């Protein structure tokens, strides 16, 4: 834990802002985004559908089924969007970053860099870490958009709800500060958390095939646990 914090410090202390860093951060963001985009769209869509289904079932009992978009929207923006995206991101992008860096280590590429007087923490770890910060909020927005789409498809398309009511409830019920920004800050924190863990385990992987495997497994497990723990504490502060 302390070691991981020290690693974070090492990344940020040596930071040299410039076009080279910007380019590699954008490149990594693109790679990470491209890796995770499809899975996040698909999952978002189905989560939206199932949320609408459950919400309609529950609300019908009280005759309040026109509130469905409000319920779906709130739970999505506040909780499910950031958390589920972060978990998917850990499984998809986090593991591949950890494996990629671990493999670089196993094939002495990290060594070669140090011998060329290039700091691998700055060159390899930092851009991938920053890319996590940048891409998770974007991916979360994408997840939310597709989840709303899924809810629309189910509530309006399948169940036959009035589209006007759906959208107006969503617009008036979702608060920008509490619901939307709360979720946004969560996704920023989760992005940093997951990518820090991935980069850290990759960088300190044993330089063997087995070591790389261990690093990827640990990345998923630890980042999932940490996301859920942080989610609770952030929610108690934000609400």
């Amino acid at each position, binding site marked *: 834990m302390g070691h991981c914090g020290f690693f974070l410090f090492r990344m940020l202390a040596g930071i040299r802002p410039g076009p080279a860093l910007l380019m590699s951060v954008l490149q990594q963001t693109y790679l990470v985004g491209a890796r995770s985009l499809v899975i996040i769209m698909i999952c978002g869509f189905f989560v939206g559908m199932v949320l609408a289904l459950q919400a309609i079932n529950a609300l019908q009992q009280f005759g309040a089924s026109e509130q469905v978009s409000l319920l779906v929207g709130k739970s999505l923006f506040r909780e499910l969007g950031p958390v589920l995206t972060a978990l998917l991101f850990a499984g998809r992008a986090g593991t591949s970053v950890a494996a990629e860096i671990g493999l670089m280590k196993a094939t002495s590429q990290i060594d070669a860099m140090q011998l060329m*007087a290039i700091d691998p923490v700055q060159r390899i770890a930092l851009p991938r870490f920053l890319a996590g910060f940048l891409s998770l909020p974007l991916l979360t927005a994408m997840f939310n958009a597709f989840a709303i789409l899924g809810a629309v498809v189910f509530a309006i398309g399948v169940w036959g709800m009035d589209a006007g009511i759906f959208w107006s409830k969503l617009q008036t019920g979702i608060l920008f500060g509490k619901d939307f920004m709360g979720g946004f800050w969560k996704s920023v924190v989760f992005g940093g958390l997951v990518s820090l863990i991935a980069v850290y385990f990759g960088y300190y992987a044993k330089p063997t095939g087995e070591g790389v495997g261990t690093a990827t497994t640990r990345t998923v497990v630890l980042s999932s646990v940490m996301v859920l723990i942080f989610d609770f504490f952030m929610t108690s502060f934000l609400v």
Partner: protein
Amino acid sequence: MKREYGDSVSWQRENSLHDPIICINNLVFHRDGNVVLDDVSMEIRRGSIVAIMGPSGVGKTTILRLITGQLQPADGSIEVNGELVSAMSHRDLYKFRKGVGVLLQNGALFTDLTVFENVATPLREHTKLSEQDITDRVMEKLDSVGLSGTQELMPHSLSGGMARRVALARAVIMNPEIVLFDEPMTGLDPIAMSTIGRLIRETNDQLGLTSVIVTHNVAQMKKLVDHCYILASAKLIAEGSPQLLTKSSDPSVDQFMNGRVEGPISFKYQQNQGGGAAQSS
């Protein structure tokens, strides 16, 4: 004095005027309580090609890592150009490494970059050359290792020998004074081996480098190097020109040079002894 790969010229005679560039004095190195290197001394002269030989696991790579300052000796010292490597600060070490090219075991090319970008990496990082100058220097180096036309390929599409040559081009792109080679020929076919050998000789003499080669390939070593150190069981057991060593009457040297199973060098793992897992290769 022009030398060809395969020429056998006595190292002593040719280099007696050159000063030592790397001095290793009574070096001791431990790892997990095992003695890896015990009282090893070397004096590597400017402009020469030197081999460090010995069975696998004897600590050859360890010596290279000590020279580059990646590891710290337990005792003894390493001086390069009169400067103590173990006393260098982090910043000095990085400056020092710009003057040392290293070709790691298997080349260690960056798998996410093209051949061109691999060779250009040190230039981009450490110089402010224009894109045109970088292209010129990289293409010149690629040409000198016989690989012009491969610049857009990715490392995974290269053969073992080609990858090693790209790594050689990358190691010398900053025009270093010293180049360290870790088993540059291991795993290559005989033709690729000789190609690498000839390139090492040519680059060494054209660029006025000093080359240190870690290898256990006795035949290639005889053709290539000026001076040779043989390690066994953590100790330096012999040094001299390849010709001298081939004729050595020392049983350990004879065993290694002729690849015999029977002899003083044991292939068994020895706990708490140097050169632990010495295997016949």
